[in-house]
């Protein structure tokens, strides 16, 4: 009886094991399918943009759609600058985004370092205010910021737009870097440097800054992409033709019919607008991942 009892238990346990492994396999398949669907959802528009930039407008509009160009051509890239000054817009975007990114990162680094390291009156209040700015919808800032930039006489200037970008990026950048300083740059590093012969400033310059490069890279790419992808502020604060950024330029081009009649040129311009952000991302992605995750584990 005991033997049959054991067999009975073994049989049940075996069936449970089998169904458990089957469940695991089904879960893996389900995860794979969902991941593939999400990837398709994200990548198909990118693929459509890329392949369309190598096709004629007629081929793009063909029904059924032609997914792979029969005779890939660079004509759209050659012609796009005739309709809108793509390279000029691109240059405007690069300049504004880079300057905003560098200045915001430097200011955020200094501010975050002070907030992470020093005790002073109202430090908590300042941090709370910085956090609160993140809760306010950007659209509500339109009127005050526009009026402010106007009162400074900076409408239709790169300086005005750059200042706006710096201001919008700073709160998040400060919070991110403050967390980085607190978790990834232990105060003992500065103390060791000060015992070794550094002043507060030289300890910051020689030790903390190099150690913080991953965090700064993360903030740099974040502020750059913020500025690069912006449409709202660039269209509000700059309205002279040649001063437009690439996002506004392409947007205007689309609204003026370019997206239909010259859809291949439009797609080529979109590819050109995407490339700098991708290059920047690939360049700093190692630091970016390190910067965002450093300090999360010991």
């Amino acid at each position, binding site marked *: 009886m005991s033997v049959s009892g054991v067999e009975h238990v073994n049989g049940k346990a075996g069936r449970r094991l089998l169904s458990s492994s089957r469940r695991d396999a089904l879960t893996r398949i389900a995860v794979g399918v969902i991941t593939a669907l999400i990837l398709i959802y994200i990548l198909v528009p990118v693929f459509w943009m890329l392949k369309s930039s190598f096709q004629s407008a007629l081929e793009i509009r063909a029904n059924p759609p032609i997914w792979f160009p029969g005779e890939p051509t660079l004509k759209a890239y050659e012609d796009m600058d005739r309709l809108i000054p793509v390279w000029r817009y691109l240059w405007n975007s690069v300049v504004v985004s880079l300057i905003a990114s560098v200045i915001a990162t430097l200011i955020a680094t200094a501010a975050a370092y002070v907030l992470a390291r020093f005790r002073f009156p109202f430090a908590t209040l300042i941090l709370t205010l910085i956090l609160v700015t993140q809760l306010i919808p950007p659209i509500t800032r339109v009127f005050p910021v526009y009026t402010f930039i106007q009162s400074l006489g900076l409408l239709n200037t790169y300086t005005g737009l750059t200042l706006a970008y710096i201001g919008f990026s700073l709160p998040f950048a400060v919070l991110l870097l403050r967390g980085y300083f607190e978790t990834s740059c232990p105060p*003992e590093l500065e103390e*060791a440097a000060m*015992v*070794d012969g550094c002043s507060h400033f030289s300890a910051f310059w020689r*030790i903390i800054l190099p*150690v913080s490069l991953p965090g700064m890279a993360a903030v740099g790419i974040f502020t750059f992409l913020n500025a690069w992808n912006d449409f709202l502020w660039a269209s509000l604060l700059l309205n002279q033709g040649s001063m437009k950024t690439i996002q506004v330029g392409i947007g205007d081009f689309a609204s003026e019919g370019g997206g239909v009649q010259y859809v291949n040129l439009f797609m080529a311009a979109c590819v050109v607008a995407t490339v700098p952000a991708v290059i920047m991302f690939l360049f700093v992605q190692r630091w970016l991942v390190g910067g965002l995750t450093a300090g999360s584990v010991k």
Partner: protein
Amino acid sequence: MGEVTLTDVRKNYGALEVLHGIDLSISDGEFVVLVGPSGCGKSTLLRMIAGLETTTSGEITVGGRLVNKLPPKDRDIAMVFQTYALYPHMTVADNMGFSLRLRSISKAEIAEKVARAADILDLTPLLQRKPRQLSGGQRQRVAMGRAIVRNPSAFLFDEPLSNLDAKLRVQMRAEIKSLHQRLGTTIVYVTHDQVEAMTMADRIVVMNGGRVEQVGSPLDLYDHPANMFVAQFIGSPAMNVFHGRVSEDQDAVLELEGGGILPLGKRATGAEPGQRISLGVRPENVRLAEEVGTTSVQAKVMVVEPTGAETLVNAVIGQSPVVASVKERLRFNPGEEVPLGFDFGEVHLFDGESGDRID
């Protein structure tokens, strides 16, 4: 050259005083260990010597110079941190030579000094590695190397072995002691581990609640603790302490709080009949007796811990816990009654109220 003196040193955080007037004189070349429980102020005191914390009042001198107002870099001290605080973006050689570069010393001289320190600490093959490529023990040695290349008046160590595993800690303990013997530089060393303090120090400073409880050589503190705190802090396992009242009659027994009596023997001479006292006896001075008599009492065994070299018998007398450390490899069942005897020549008596030594 490397004397360190502290005169009535106090530290306040706002209205809260955390160090209550520390006086201490450390001779040139001495190895002094500050030991005490967490929060006793030992690290704060070390950081004040280093200049990483301000001194509220009192005087700190290093090498005969008043350093209260000097920044850390001008105090001629080097410090080894608990977390090593190695610069992660620099190689071992750059870490060790960093302080020399700041002093505008020539590259050749820096290389020579770094090589010499690396040789002492067995770091030569690791000079071009980054800190992340080193083990805990190697990092610890680099931190020491960074300190010794400067040839400072005094080394300050802030719990440098706390992050190492037990085996490496024992090894590094010996290395630090041998380094001190070789260099002869003053060392002020902070630890909460009394074994580290006992094995390394020329003198130990026992701190508690922002005050110095006792200063003395390791064996002096072990044999003659000034009060009950020192008695219980120094020694592992800790000293057994029995609280009770000296009997009013002539038998000189201690009536224990929670029941039971202990014979006091000749050591009762410092205590008055009726006085509340605490009797301390080290575990190695508690032995298994043949039978209960005038110098032994009945105890109930709770746990037996064999360590190989000795056996720790955890028992209770009445409700008072007692640990006996015996050489024999014994087996007892929990709850078993055994007679325990004390070496009355080695017991310590403390006042029941103040905790001060009375014998």
